[in-house]
């Protein structure tokens, strides 16, 4: 069915055999604050109208780091008006059809994750989830949603996951990696338990997003530092989860590190294993080597792709990370968009290309309709 739709779609009509693509990082936007408010109960709608809102969305509120062109692709503003990625028809034309995208995973960057007022955050996340169904994944089956949950209120997060876990229009749970406490702490375990139970990967979108400062010594001065610091957020969250024992407690949990880069990843894994060999007695609750947890539990999205001076070096990096754990992503409509044909500046074998651009994501998110694996956590 999807193949037929795509064959009709503009841009997919040429005869070249194209790898079908799963894009694991698309950022849909509210058309206006009024649209966002329409998904809140009256109590919170009035609150936002009276008190205002801090938001990770540059066109809805204040970003911690202003950036060129509000962080958007300059060609992504819909002719019909509204911010980039707020118009389904234009997103279909410019992204899904133009690049032959079979499935696109939404990362809505709900303002709910950032709220100090956690009750408001819970309401905003629920609204973001309803909105994903109404505006995106309902009308366009190629799009799949991320279940936004307010991670600082674990019980409310579990309630939200349970309420929607059987709706396959959602394929993962989304939390911010720059949590109030390190992500491995037990206060967050109910979220991991629920996600593992319903076989929903937990996505941590590192970029532009989180309650905490972006570096260990506070807020850096420039956006260029912020962009690099995405990798800090991903590393901090993952290392905490390993050493706190999250993966021992939830052996079926899957984690996706989104938009944090990946060249740092193999060096981190090598170092974690070495340190564990020497300091294992400090964390005797760990049953396995850090690299073994990572092998079974962790995936990474590819954007922003790494661009070493010699393109051939990218081949080494991809293999060190593992061709089976990388998930292609565009980050549409943001300025650092990666194009599926040009992002990897090296020749990939058809098999590797298929893994990166489609197969890994299809398997991880069960996009082929594989049955839900219900597991005790």
């Amino acid at each position, binding site marked *: 069915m999807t193949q037929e739709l795509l064959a009709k779609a503009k841009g997919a009509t040429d005869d070249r055999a194209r790898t079908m693509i799963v894009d694991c990082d698309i950022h849909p936007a509210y058309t206006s604050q009024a649209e966002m408010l329409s998904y809140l109960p009256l109590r919170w709608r009035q609150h936002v109208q009276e008190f205002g809102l801090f938001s990770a969305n540059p066109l809805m509120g204040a970003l911690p780091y202003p950036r060129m062109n509000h962080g958007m692709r300059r060609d992504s503003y819909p002719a019909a008006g509204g911010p980039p990625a707020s118009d389904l028809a234009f997103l279909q034309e410019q992204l899904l059809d133009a690049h032959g995208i079979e499935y696109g995973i939404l990362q809505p960057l709900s303002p709910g994750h950032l709220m100090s007022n956690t009750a408001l955050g819970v309401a905003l996340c629920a609204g973001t989830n309803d909105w994903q169904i109404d505006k995106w994944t309902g009308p366009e089956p190629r799009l799949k949603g991320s279940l936004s949950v307010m991670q600082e209120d674990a019980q409310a997060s579990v309630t939200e996951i349970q309420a929607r876990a059987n709706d396959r229009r959602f394929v993962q749970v989304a939390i911010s990696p720059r949590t109030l406490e390190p992500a491995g702490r037990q206060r967050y375990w109910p979220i991991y338990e629920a996600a593992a139970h319903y076989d929903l990967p937990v996505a941590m979108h590192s970029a532009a997003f989180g309650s905490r400062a972006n570096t260990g010594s506070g807020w850096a001065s420039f956006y260029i530092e912020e962009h690099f610091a995405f990798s800090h957020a991903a590393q901090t969250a993952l290392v905490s989860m390993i050493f706190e024992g999250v993966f021992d407690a939830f052996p079926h949990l899957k984690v996706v590190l989104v938009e944090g880069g990946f060249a740092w990843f193999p060096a981190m894994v090598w170092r974690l294993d070495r340190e564990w060999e020497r300091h294992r007695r400090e964390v005797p609750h760990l049953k396995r080597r850090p690299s073994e947890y990572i092998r079974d539990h962790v995936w990474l999205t590819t954007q922003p792709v790494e661009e070493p001076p010699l393109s051939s070096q990218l081949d080494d990096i991809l293999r060190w990370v593992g061709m089976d754990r990388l998930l292609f992503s565009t980050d549409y409509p943001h300025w650092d968009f990666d194009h599926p044909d*040009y992002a990897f500046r090296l020749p990939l074998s058809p098999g590797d290309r298929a893994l990166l651009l489609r197969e890994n994501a299809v398997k991880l998110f069960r996009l082929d309709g594989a049955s839900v694996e219900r597991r005790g956590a």
Partner: protein
Amino acid sequence: MTDHVVCALSELPPGKAKRVMIGTRAIAVFNVDGKLSAIADRCPHEGASLSQGQVGGVIVSDRPGEYRVRTDMKMVRCPWHGWEFDMDTGKSWCDPARMKTRSFGVKICPGATLEEGSYSLEVFSVSLQDEYVVVTV
């Protein structure tokens, strides 16, 4: 090398850019304060359309806290990743040796002169009174 009439000058007023096709080749034509330039309309990095980019001066600095914009040097910034290209040479600011796009000759010709040249006129009916943008490929 052939001259191609790509549009009327009135379609490319100062401050505007336009994507034109010559055969299968996409070319970005810019009018910056009356001065025209033409480069391939495809960023060599990941393929974005440079005609969608913003044209601006180059910002320079000798030390933190001191900045100035060189308005004598204008560049187009790729609408995606912000690579800056010199619209005359097609070379990028940060990596001119490796990251560059092709540049083309471009001129303004009065309609009255177009009759005589060996122009490639594909879609235009030319008015003798108007001026036209001509790209050499």
